[in-house]
């Protein structure tokens, strides 16, 4: 939907994305990121009208992993705060809607995840229908492979197209100091990789990542005070598909398209709006192709200049990082329009789309 009140991303911070954060626990990993996101705009947690976070208990194998995270923020005196068991992008959505109510002007959003604490494939398999699907133990790579094969079977794309996505992602990630997987590899080199689960080769899979991220949102004039070029959220929406994989067309992303339309990113003819940058949360290489098509992105759009989820895929983190990275391109002046996408669940089951611009929607309001 389009906002009633202009709200912008005014600050973004993230940890380095690493395979295994062994020296710091969740709180210690998160705390420097919180400090950083505040320092960039000269604020403290006492300036925040609302705080919302995203994390997943199962990653560390203990209930209430988000509870200790309050220590990273320093939740004293008590604060208005909530938590979603979802990617931080959905926490940002919750904060964005509450900012529409006018009684607060700022919000801190953060998320964190240490996938190295568990066997991620097994944890994510426990997301599946516990009666009919999870007992078969199809892991996320196996499910993504089914999706990739279905995409190949449409004749739209082949394995070399997947490799091209990975090649570009790694190359672009070289300029991202927080990225985990970078490199300069040709499609031919990547195609020499072994299959993990056919038709997915090693390079088409996301890395397993430990990391944390934080964003500050501000409304109206408060955003203009805090940031020279706020990244205004001109629309945002998210939608979920059925869980039953057999009932979905895995080769398209109907809910990404639905969310994009609601966020004002499709024109009257259903073509993608002209944005300069798109940060897409595509954990598997072939999913970027599905998302590009769903969003109707022109070839001129810079897709995942950060390297995307193939360069770093913190579970619960990577979606919010996409919003932060897209907003950063506006805040640093390299773009005037951008979109960010976040996903959750097997094979792009749930999708969020956020439209960002250097000018608020219906500029002049607020």
């Amino acid at each position, binding site marked *: 939907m389009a906002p009633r009140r202009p709200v912008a991303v005014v600050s973004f911070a993230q940890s380095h994305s690493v395979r295994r954060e062994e020296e710091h626990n969740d709180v210690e990993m998160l705390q420097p990121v919180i400090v950083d996101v505040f320092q960039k705009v000269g604020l403290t947690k006492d300036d925040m009208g609302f705080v919302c976070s995203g994390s997943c*208990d199962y990653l560390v194998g203990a*209930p209430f992993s988000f509870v200790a995270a309050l220590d990273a923020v320093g939740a004293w*005196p008590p604060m208005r705060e*909530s938590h979603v068991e979802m990617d931080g992008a959905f926490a940002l*959505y*919750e904060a964005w809607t509450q900012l529409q109510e006018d009684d607060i002007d700022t919000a801190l959003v953060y998320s964190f995840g240490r996938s190295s604490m568990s066997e991620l494939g097994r944890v994510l398999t426990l997301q599946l229908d516990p009666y009919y699907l999870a007992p078969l133990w199809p892991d996320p790579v196996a499910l993504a492979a089914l999706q990739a094969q279905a995409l190949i079977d449409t004749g739209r794309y082949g394995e070399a197209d997947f490799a091209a996505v990975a090649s570009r992602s790694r190359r672009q990630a070289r300029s991202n100091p927080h990225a985990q997987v970078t490199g300069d590899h040709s499609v031919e080199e990547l195609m020499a990789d072994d299959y993990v689960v056919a038709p997915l080769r090693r390079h088409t899979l996301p890395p397993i990542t430990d990391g944390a991220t934080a964003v500050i949102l501000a409304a109206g004039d408060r955003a203009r005070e805090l940031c020279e070029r706020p990244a205004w959220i001109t629309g945002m929406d998210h939608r979920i598909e059925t*869980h039953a994989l057999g009932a979905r067309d895995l080769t398209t992303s*109907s809910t990404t398209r639905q969310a994009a339309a609601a966020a004002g990113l499709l024109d009257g003819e259903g073509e993608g709006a002209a944005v300069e940058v798109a940060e897409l949360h595509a954990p598997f290489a072939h999913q970027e192709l599905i998302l590009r098509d769903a969003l109707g992105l022109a070839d001129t759009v810079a897709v995942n200049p950060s390297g995307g989820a193939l360069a770093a895929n913190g579970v619960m983190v990577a979606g919010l990082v996409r919003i932060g990275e897209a907003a950063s391109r506006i805040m640093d002046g390299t773009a005037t329009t951008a979109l960010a996408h976040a996903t959750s669940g*097997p094979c792009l089951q749930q999708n969020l789309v956020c439209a960002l611009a250097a000018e608020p929607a219906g500029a002049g309001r607020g």
Partner: protein
Amino acid sequence: MAERTAVIGVGQTHHRAKREDVSIAGLVREAAVRALEDAGMGWSDIDAVVIGKAPDMFEGVVMPELYLAPALGAVGKPMIRVHTAGSVGGSTALVAAHLVASGTHERVLTVAFEKQSDSDAMWALSIPQPFSAPLLAGAGGYFAPIIRAYMRRSGAPDHIGIVVAVKDRKQALLNPYAHLHIEDISYEMVRDSIMLWDPVRYLETCPSSDGAAAMVLASERVAEGSSSPHPPAWIHGMAMRSEPTMFAGRDQVNPKAGQECAADVYAQAGITDPRAEIDVAEVYVPFSWYEPMWLENLGFCPEGEGWKLTDAGATALDGGDIPWNCSGGVLSTNPIGASGMLRFLEAALQVRGQAGAHQVETVRRALGQAYGGGSQFFAMWVLGADKP
């Protein structure tokens, strides 16, 4: 300016120790269907779904909302999953309410559940974490020392917890949905039950339940055009507050986050004397002693006086001036993720005159409260019969 928001549909399951007759999807659907029927709506009328539950370890399903999306009619719609520990049922209702108050949606279905028979909740809560103080044997082991601190501070006599346990179990007999129906509940029965975590006896403890709760929240426009046979319950105030689990000097008996959350809600609702201005309250009392403690935290009486209200019968449906937990409360029904929403939902039932045998006469305003974690997460709302 926030949009006026109301509860226009309410539904809950019959709560039991084991609902082996339904899957998780069947459980949440039972509550959701009842809420939709009460609202006079169908699945297609709903704009968005907000679901909450406590730790995923309780059922062993990670982010179960993904699997539950089709069962809750959420396909093609926005769906949000909330988790704020024990307060989650309340927080989930508030996240849903904000989606309406912010003008984002006009009809939001909110659902909370727990199917605790799928695991052993006490041990799921007791997984040791490196460098963290252990919860010991479940929540009771955590809260018992805090209750002892309350008793020492306030000089409350030993029997107060028993009074609460008997009162709430008697009131549960009037609620057909309640898990515990102990027909011959008595002071002696509670007193003689085994001591679990001194001073908390077995019958002063909440049960472990399978159950779900659901509500339909709506904008002013939708609420006023609603075909529900029951009037809307308008939100007069709502708030959440959180504070860290532990630090030197933290008062866990009368937490500041709870006091500030109540103050915020009362200010929104224009309430200055909660005991006089709130007709009925549903408050999260998982261990008997939390009634006198929350009477003080919520400002129904001065600090140290809560036990006197309980002892005098002021909180009883039968004869009290501030009936608390007429439904039987958490002490009688405890599907953890839904327990907070049941408090919020029971407040709506009272305002809408739907509470049946446990209905309080003439309810203009009702309070719903939930808390979680180490008495550190608070969610509250005040509902009223009058449009604010």
